[in-house]
């Protein structure tokens, strides 16, 4: 939140110079870069408050592209994702390369030593963030996901990693489903206890399972493991313990 505030204040101050209103960007760039604008329009970034300025800043000063390629453009809105990335090897290298990375280079061909947020998510300048996954078939999704990795890694490693990563997530989903089935049994016996257990299941999905996904996507071991799988295990067994006590109690004196 502080970061977001700082970003807003920063651009409010800087933006008083040769600022360009967001709508004005589109009126020119629809002519100059129709494909780029069309990609953005169908992206998840096309929403109130996330216009061109949000990542590029309002200054038309020749550094607009470089600014948006930098991780600082993303972390204000994506603090949790950025935390997962920062502790990964890619993120560590990015931190250590700070000040030595040339962000005027396009986001392709391994131009940046370690991939930044935008290098993978807006690879080769493709602004259609978040739509690829919804609109493509399975093979197309796999291709879109693997493209940035191939600038450095072998296709076989990428393929192996993503299939293991997908299974890692699926196994997490199994834990959440097993827990949900136990909650149904708890609720049948005691609605109040069931509601409490249901909250735990929601936490499993919203927090731990999300961490596994972030960990897989960002190659972040802590999120896959400590904040992911064993955390899911803990909540699953806590839910089972609730039913365990109910069953024990129902045996009577």
């Amino acid at each position, binding site marked *: 939140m502080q970061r977001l505030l700082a970003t807003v204040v920063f651009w409010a101050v800087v933006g008083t110079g040769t600022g360009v209103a967001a709508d004005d960007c589109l009126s020119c760039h629809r002519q100059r870069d129709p494909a780029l604008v069309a990609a953005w329009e169908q992206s998840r970034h096309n929403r109130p408050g996330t216009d061109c300025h949000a990542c590029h800043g309002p200054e038309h000063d020749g550094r607009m592209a470089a600014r948006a390629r930098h991780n600082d453009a993303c972390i204000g809105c994506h603090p949790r994702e950025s935390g997962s990335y920062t502790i990964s090897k890619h993120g*560590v290298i990015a931190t250590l390369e700070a000040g030595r990375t040339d962000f005027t280079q396009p986001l392709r061909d391994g131009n940046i030593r370690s991939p930044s947020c935008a290098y993978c998510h807006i690879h080769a300048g493709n602004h259609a963030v978040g739509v690829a996954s919804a609109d493509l078939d399975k093979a197309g999704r796999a291709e879109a996901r693997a493209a940035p990795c*191939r600038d450095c890694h072998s296709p*076989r490693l990428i393929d192996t*990693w993503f299939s293991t990563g997908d299974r890692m997530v699926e*196994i997490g989903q199994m*834990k959440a489903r097993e827990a949900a089935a136990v909650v149904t049994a708890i609720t049948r016996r005691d609605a109040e206890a069931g509601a409490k257990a249901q909250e735990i299941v929601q936490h499993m999905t919203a927090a731990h399972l999300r961490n596994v996904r972030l*960990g897989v996507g960002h190659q972040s071991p802590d999120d896959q493991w400590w904040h992911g799988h064993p955390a899911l295990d803990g909540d699953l067994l806590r839910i089972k313990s609730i039913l365990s006590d109910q069953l024990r109690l129902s045996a009577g004196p």
Partner: protein
Amino acid sequence: MRIARFHLVALLLAWPLLAWGGLPDNAQGTGEHAPHWQPDPMHEYWDPGTYHRPEAESVEGVFKGEDCLECHAEATPGIVKDWRDSRHARAEPPVLCPACHGEDHQKLSFPTPRTCGTCHPQRLAQVEEEKKYGFPSHALAMERAVDSKHFADKPKAEVASCLQCHSVATKCDSCHTRHRFDPAEARRPEACLTCHSGPPHPDDLAYAASPHGQRYQKEGAGWDWSKPLRKGNYPSPTCAYCHMRNGNHQVADKAVWKFGIREINPHTAENAIKRKRWQATCADCHPPETAGNFFRQLDDERRTAWGSLQGVERLLKALRGDGLLRPAARERPPYPMDFMARLLPRERIGFYEGQASAFYNVGAIERDYFEMWYFDNLGAYKGMAHGAPDMSRRFHERLDSAARNIALQAKRLTALDGKSPSGKNVDLTPLWMEGEYTRFNRDHN
């Protein structure tokens, strides 16, 4: 160039159709529980010395000298750029791709520490020397991972996450990231933190909270990281400055408190030698009394933490004696290799009974103790050991609160038994042995 690009695109599109190497379907596990598990395909990349199989039928040919660079500048430009910035590229003669990967594209391999040791024998010898000190050490990290019961038991795609850090034993690029392998990068604390973070080893939080780490955070970006880790070269110590003093890649010979994971006698003859080694490290900046006082504080902190843990262990063992721990040992899924545990089932309490693997196949009270021991206790240790006493105090508060919570649960379990004595006879096997994940876990080792 256009033709080369066409071939490259064709190759990439056809890639899934080509038969490539990788782990055969019948690949077996390694280590103590080898007969009981099969590796995930990713294991090949984390332990290439054991599991890598060359990529067959992709590109044929023998490539020498700079041949590789021609294609790979196009195929994988990132790693070629990285290598060009490395000392390997600047050396006379340069260390080219075949030196580490081989020349025959049908038989390429990934470098292991032994490969790196061909040119860096002293560093390899230092890493190997760790093995005589036991765990914790980098050199034994992979062994430690695959020999744990939960690793053998759990689905391998799930525990593939463990290998990312435990592969520090089987590859050098955990710290010296490829393909630049810059020592200046490995000297910085961030190089350690991808693995030295998270609940059981929050070294990242501890260092950041310590005066040493605070100075690094303020000034570190401007320090000259090309300098060796020697006295006078750095205004404040980093992880490697103390743990890899003078660049020694053997990090285990000062391990007195053994990660905080189990109770030790800090004053054995062996530990006296190790304490002297620490004292000599601290003496780069501090008088001997300062280090001595610091160790005493750490000894006291450990004694308090262990007192608290032992109290809870006694409580849990009493519940075990009264048959109040559910699932009872016979009701919980056994590890695949545990024949004895099937004959003589027993709930595992504390480090010496194998608590480290008992975090998913237990009831809530045992899991709470696992978190108390593994998370709160180790946070308290890591804080104190890195000169962050405030952090240590916060984790001691969590230890105390966990102990109180477990005591309350114990009371509740005892009361439950009073209310429903015949509940002891209820068979909870279906609840604890069944379920979508539990079944999948049992069927996938």
